[in-house]
């Protein structure tokens, strides 16, 4: 660790990983409810477990992003963080807001708006958290008078996420208008500014792990985020199919969301080129696993599987089926979960003052491969369920309930692969909490083997 205040990232990642574990509990519960009958339907119906499952994801990934920013910004700007105390308060407030929301859902306190279920006071608290974060990071960079492209893209992504959260505070009497703006938050997050964050973190990791030339990496980073926005902004239109908006959104959505995989493919080429040029000899091989994994899974999950059902004449039949869940799970995991875990895995040995080599444990490898295999299986289960559902319910005209009975077998596969995945998550958390701190020593100066500045 080059700067003492980078350690602020640690409690962020502790909270993030704990919530990641909790997310698994509610995900598995949701699968069991799909199999039914549901003995705890009166206490915890499906809608509550689903809302908690998705909200925990958003909260913990954002926590992970912010922790990663606190890790990365001092290093990039070559200074201590402006105010570690403010960062701790910010984490406290964000955790309190997240926990309040989750507990509130259990007691049916909800705004009932998909992915933006947070009740209004919680939404306001989130805005305050964002402002605290941006102030702290902004002051750090301003005082250092040094802003690299890598951190600039990362911080701009987080600032964009804060700005784009604002439409979520608006309310409209017209349901079509309210979902129109709901996508400004949800879509322009995950297919816009969050991709910037992913790109920034990826550039940082590739520079550190492969020792690739910073100038070259940052040059192409602009191309990646440029492609993201060129395709992603108008790509919002693929959420404007069939909801009561003008018909011109149909071809726009078709064409621009067909271009969206380009940004993800560009990231894959980016990583490939970096490793070709500079090799992957970094001793923290687990971090290399997660970084390369993230690039591959986001290209497949977010890019290809998104493309699979985004063309209007296809989406006409698949809209609102399990096909969407197929794309959503792998996209979020590949693009955002894996990039956070990559940064955490990269930073952990440095944080604990251990040599990078010791970080590759058998448990760490199992954690990686179980999540990879589990998510692949879950994606296939959602895909087969969704294809069957589309065919039986939408094309043949079978009733919804009869269709769900006929695709039960896919939910069994979902449960089996979901358990594998959750086991991988549990091992990752165990590895992070119990194995690493056992060798906890006072942070040593930057290890000699580490390329300090590529």
């Amino acid at each position: 660790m080059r700067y003492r205040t980078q350690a602020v990232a640690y409690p962020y990642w502790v909270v993030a990983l704990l919530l990641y574990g909790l997310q698994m509990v509610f995900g598995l519960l949701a699968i069991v409810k799909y199999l039914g009958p549901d003995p705890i339907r009166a206490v915890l119906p499906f809608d509550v477990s689903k809302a908690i499952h998705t909200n925990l994801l958003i909260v913990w990934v954002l926590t992970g992003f912010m922790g990663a920013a606190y890790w990365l910004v001092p290093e990039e700007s070559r200074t201590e963080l402006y105010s570690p105390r403010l960062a701790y308060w910010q984490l406290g407030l964000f955790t309190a807001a997240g926990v309040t929301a989750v507990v509130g859902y259990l007691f049916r306190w909800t705004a009932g708006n998909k992915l933006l279920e947070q009740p209004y006071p919680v939404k306001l608290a989130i805005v305050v958290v964002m402002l605290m974060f941006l102030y702290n990071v902004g002051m750090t960079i301003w005082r250092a008078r040094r802003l690299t492209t890598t951190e600039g893209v990362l911080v701009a992504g987080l600032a964009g996420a804060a700005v784009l959260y604002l439409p979520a505070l608006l309310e409209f009497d017209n349901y079509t208008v309210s979902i129109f703006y709901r996508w400004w938050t949800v879509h322009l997050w995950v297919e816009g500014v969050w991709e910037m964050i992913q790109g920034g973190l990826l550039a940082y990791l590739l520079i550190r792990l492969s020792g690739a030339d910073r100038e070259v990496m940052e040059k192409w980073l602009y191309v990646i985020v440029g492609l993201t926005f060129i395709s992603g902004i108008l790509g919002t239109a693929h959420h404007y199919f069939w909801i009561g908006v003008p018909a011109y959104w149909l071809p726009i959505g078709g064409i621009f969301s067909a271009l969206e995989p380009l940004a993800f493919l560009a990231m894959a080429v980016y990583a490939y080129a970096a490793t070709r040029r500079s090799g992957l000899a970094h001793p923290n091989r687990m971090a290399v696993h997660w970084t390369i994994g993230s690039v591959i899974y986001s290209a497949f999950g977010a890019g290809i599987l998104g493309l699979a059902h985004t063309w209007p004449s296809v989406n006409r039949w698949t809209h609102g089926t399990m096909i969407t869940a197929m794309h959503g799970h792998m996209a979020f995991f590949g693009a955002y979960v894996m990039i956070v875990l990559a940064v955490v895995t990269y930073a952990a040995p440095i944080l604990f003052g251990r040599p990078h080599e010791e970080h590759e444990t058998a448990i760490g490898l199992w954690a990686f491969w179980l999540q990879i295999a589990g998510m692949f299986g879950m994606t296939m289960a959602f895909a087969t369920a969704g294809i069957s559902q589309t065919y039986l319910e939408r094309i043949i005209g079978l009733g919804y309930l009869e269709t769900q009975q006929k695709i039960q077998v896919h939910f069994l596969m979902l449960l089996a692969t979901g358990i594998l995945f959750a086991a991988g998550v549990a091992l990752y958390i165990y590895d992070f909490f119990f194995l690493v701190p056992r060798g906890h020593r006072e942070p040593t100066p930057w290890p000699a083997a580490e390329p300090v500045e590529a």
Partner: protein
Amino acid sequence: MTKRQTRAFFYAGTGVFGAIFIALTIDSHRQFPTLTHSDRITPAVIAGKHVWHRQNCVNCHTLLGEGAYFAPDLTKITQQRGAAYLKAFLKDPSKFYSEERDRRLMPTLALSDREIDELIAFLDWVGRIDTQGWPPRPILVTGAAIPGTEAVGAPPRAAASSDPVALGEALFRRTPPGCSACHSTAPGVNVVGPSLANAATVAAQRVESPDYHGKATDAAGYLRESILDPNAYVVQGPTFSSGGRSLMPSDFAQTLEPRQVDELVAYLMTLR
């Protein structure tokens, strides 16, 4: 390419496409009132939207195809089921579905009569939004297509010929009016309303039966009366009626043209 050029690519690309997006958003606002019939957004519809959000409906159901995939899409539900049925259903879903049979069951929500009316008003408004022809064929909650039904492969909209029977059958499968959402034509399959497998035969027997007090004198007349005035004779069944009133929508006299009623009767008379 230099870093300066790639940076320009990023700024210019984002700026240009962002500006197009904003322009289209402004134009969409111009068109929202027509496309969504915003003049029909009454206070009841707005209140119903709040009920929809308060009850977290979207985390099981989809509406306009958006939401969760644990429960059926509700975009056209008021046209398929009608207000009377939905009212009875929302009071106690377990009367209509069984968790043992369907593996899942909607929880009974503690909704007041007024909230139920508002929710139905909201869903009814949503059902009239211009969705560019989506869904391409009706998404049914239940029914159809257990062996013996001819819904499989039947064209959703167009009739095979100009024959009244063919036109009637096509109309039967279409939403609105959504007859097939509640009535199967397979023997013994009671979806929500009674099976119409042998509707013509049953109708002929019913007009002769002593407990029939309606105005019809023959089978075709009985079928016509059942469509236009479902309460003229109420068939008994667990999901057919509530409080002695039929759960079938009673506004087909207004929403269907006389020619369409003729076609439906012509089709139903072929089910013997």
